[in-house]
């Protein structure tokens, strides 16, 4: 058989092939185990000895040519990366097949986001126990046991001989962390806290707080403002306005409450912000020298700031949730929205 002839015929048939199926048929016809080229190779022993080597080379060259040609045609017929589907285009209108992913509770999600913002600034995330001593919850934090400044911290006591309680804020972790470590310190502390408040749309006897504090030489009030501005803008958007309002907390001085311009009415005054145009989001201040003395730090050497916020409040503002009880009712129709 004439190799040239076979080559021409094969080339033209490959070129005119119009589908991957017909191309595959051609590949089978020429390059298959019982194909045309295999037949040619099989005929070699019947050739005169002198022609065998040359014929063999020609067959091999043809095999290579045709393989390349078929491959090139296959690429041109296929188009980029897309499988030629036998299914109709309506298939995609059917629902996707279930993968069944669950979801984190919105409080976990918001806690995670807030911690992440502070971690990016170099804060560590630490935790502490929920059962606390009066010292860590009050006295160490410069809150006298019998003083009106304690009224803001109604507390659940445990029915035990020793006066232990359920922490009413995450601040006792400040005392624990400072007693255990020397400065510099920069940490945030998320966790559950407890207060005997009657349950209503904005109160729950259990809720979540995030505490944060920084202690080092040369930490000042302007740093507190900067860190909290980064935080508030990361959570509520960079176009919010902020204000720091003097306030009193026994464990910080100077103390400040931090407001952001109302994210609902943009500061004009609405029912969410009580017509004030501002929303209080957290309490903060420079750590009181007495707190440093209580943990054995020298207040002449070290300064620091601390802040604390309610996670439920932040989540309610962020998502527009109007009832704190929804968080603990755990209705799946609620949870699946986040």
């Amino acid at each position, binding site marked *: 058989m004439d190799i040239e002839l076979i080559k021409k015929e094969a080339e033209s048939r490959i070129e005119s092939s119009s589908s991957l199926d017909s191309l595959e048929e051609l590949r089978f016809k020429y390059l298959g185990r019982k194909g045309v080229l295999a037949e040619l190779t099989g005929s070699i022993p019947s050739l005169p000895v002198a022609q065998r080597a040359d014929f063999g080379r020609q067959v091999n060259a043809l095999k290579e040519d045709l393989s390349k040609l078929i491959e090139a045609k296959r690429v041109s017929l296929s188009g980029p990366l897309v499988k030629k589907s036998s299914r109709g285009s309506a298939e995609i209108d059917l629902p996707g097949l279930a993968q069944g992913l669950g979801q984190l509770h919105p409080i976990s999600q918001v806690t995670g986001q807030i911690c992440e913002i502070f971690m990016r600034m170099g804060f560590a995330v630490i935790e502490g126990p929920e*059962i606390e001593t009066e010292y860590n919850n009050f006295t160490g934090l410069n809150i006298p046991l019998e003083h009106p400044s304690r009224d803001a911290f109604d507390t659940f006591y*445990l029915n035990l001989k020793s006066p232990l309680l359920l922490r009413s804020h995450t601040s006792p972790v400040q005392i624990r962390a400072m007693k255990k470590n020397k400065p510099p310190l920069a940490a945030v502390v998320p966790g559950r806290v407890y207060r005997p408040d009657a349950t209503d749309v904005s109160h729950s006897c259990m809720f979540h707080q995030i505490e944060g504090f920084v202690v080092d030489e040369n930490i000042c009030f302007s740093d507190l403002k900067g860190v909290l501005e980064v935080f508030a803008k990361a959570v509520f958007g960079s176009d919010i306005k902020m204000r720091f309002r003097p306030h009193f907390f026994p464990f910080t001085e100077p103390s400040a409450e931090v407001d952001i311009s109302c994210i609902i009415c943009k500061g004009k005054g609405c029912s969410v912000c009580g017509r004030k145009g501002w929303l209080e989001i957290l309490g903060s201040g420079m750590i009181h020298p007495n707190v440093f003395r209580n943990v054995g730090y020298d207040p002449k050497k070290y300064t620091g700031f601390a802040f604390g916020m309610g996670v439920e409040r932040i989540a309610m503002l962020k998502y527009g949730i109007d009832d704190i009880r929804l968080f603990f009712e755990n209705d799946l129709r609620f949870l699946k929205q986040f």
Partner: protein
Amino acid sequence: MKVTYNWLKDFVQLKIAPGRLAEKLTMAGLEVVSLKELAGDFIFEIEITSNRPDWLSVIGIAREVAAITAAKLELPKLPSLSPVRAAGLGEFTIEIEDKKDCPLYTAKIIKNVKIAPSPEWLRKRLELVGCRSVNNVVDITNYVLFEYGQPLHTFDLDALRPSGIIIRRGKDQERITTIDAEERILDRDILAIADKYAPVAVAGVMGGVTTQVSNNTRNVLLEAAIFDPVLIRRGRQKLGLQSEAAYRFERGLNHKIVEAVSLRATSLILELAGGEYVLNRSCGSIKVKNNSVLLDVKEVGRILGANISASETKTILSNLGFNMRAKTKGKFLVHVPAFRQDITSAIDLIEELARIHGYEKIMVSLPALRPKPILETARDRTCLVKNILVGLGLSEVITHSLVSSQLLSDCGISIKGTIAIKNPLSKEQQILRPTLLPSLVRCLAYNLNQKQDYIAIFETAKVFTLSNAGTPQEELFLGIVICGEKSLLLTKGLTKEESGPRQLKGITESLFNRLDIQGYSFIGEGIDKAAILLGQEKIGAITALDKEVLLRLDIKNKEVFCLELCLEKVLSAMHKDRKFSPLPKYPGIERDISIIVKEDVSIREVLAAVKEIGAGYLAELKISDSYQGKQIPQGHRSLTLSCFYRLGDRTLTEAEINPLHAQVSAKLKERFGASMR
């Protein structure tokens, strides 16, 4: 605390509109929570922080207004009054049982007053700040209370039995009816004002009904005193009472103005109710510490990160009523006025400077944090666990740590060894939960009521128990509950998967494999209950809930499956440094065995037997199918074991494996009575 615009004008010239003043006050730390226009005046409702009892008075707020609006404070001149002598009062005595309880008690007696309604201006001012008008004498004491912040009380002198006042602790079970017509029972922790026979007032809190000034009163005794703040606080807490007077006594008063305030009230009584001022008696003495604080200007910058000049420092502090003189360069000795007992150290002054200078003027900076290397924490690992569970299709819930004892007993859990709350607000918050499951099951019941047909939820939270030694312990646990049919839309159509313990086992295995936990096992403990072991230690359990328990929790015709795990133990068993193991170089040989065994044959033991025989050759062993039903005899189970044989150093041959695999079959027949399929 409510104060009106016009009342403030008595003491400070206001050149600022009410709205603007409210903003300024808020930004100085006196948060104006509401501003209302009423009857030609403006009422400011201000939240006063507990460190500033001096702001619980119109004069105190006026002083602040003067400082922030650069206006002058004009304090009223006090009248000079002396009692005219009257007969029959020479015997009148004041006796203080313990000067610690009451450092100073003053009494002024005014005779022949005419009790009448108050004049219009007095009634209106009191009503605007939320105080009910009673009569001229009582109104005057309230008016002066608001004006100066010093509580006063008037007694009907003729109702006091002769001849004098005793300030003493209450006696156990001693009774007094207070002016709100409630009978109060006193004890040794409550301070009383008494006459010779009985208490006539709860000191610093509320007067008694028998001695109150009424329309028939002719002669009055005006009390102005100082009581121990802690004692007043304890007493009013014990009695469950709150009053304007107690609120101020608890917070601490300016000891220096007692006499002046008493004179101010006396002169008003004389003016509005007539009568003669006939006696002035006092017992005890005032001890006002003359505090001085050294203020270093450098310290102001160190704390605030902002410089406040020496001249601004002087202006701010002197406007707030402080006297100061320069000590050395950049240092001032600041004398604290008597009305500022909250100022005891330099940091208190720095706050005053920052407040009046304006927080908004302090620039914004970021600290140069010097972080320590942050190692992975338990929280990071807990987050990982939560994310894996979410990936496995579970929804996270957060339920209350406090539960009712009813819920525990409904779930068959003993309250022995649990920690109770001493002061619960309701029965729902009595006990710190020793397990997460009851709350989770209740949450599940709630969602079943909302017509959810498949529920798979989890929570990670602390559980609380008492150790044998009686110390409370808290441990991080994981709880999962599942119920119902999970609908999966697959290519072959809708498939429903009934919940069961094996889902929970699968979740646990996926979790543990992902966390690289080694050496765990599941041991069946009777029907529908399995322990999860880590080594030899039980760290959790998988259970099917009892029908009776479910009924008590209002769950009908459903099966509920639970898992509870001590997460702390799981997290500490996590392999922290994974090591790479080289990929196998040589191919292996896979052989399946399908057997039928009785259903009570321990599958764990079957697997262990196969492993024992295959030791050295068996690289993987798993159950690739299990089936009970048609074609399988009653009480039996069909199992397909996939054995994968492989060596690390050479290619295995069929000739090597065939006899080994035959040995496996023989062992299963012999030991477990298995028949081959």
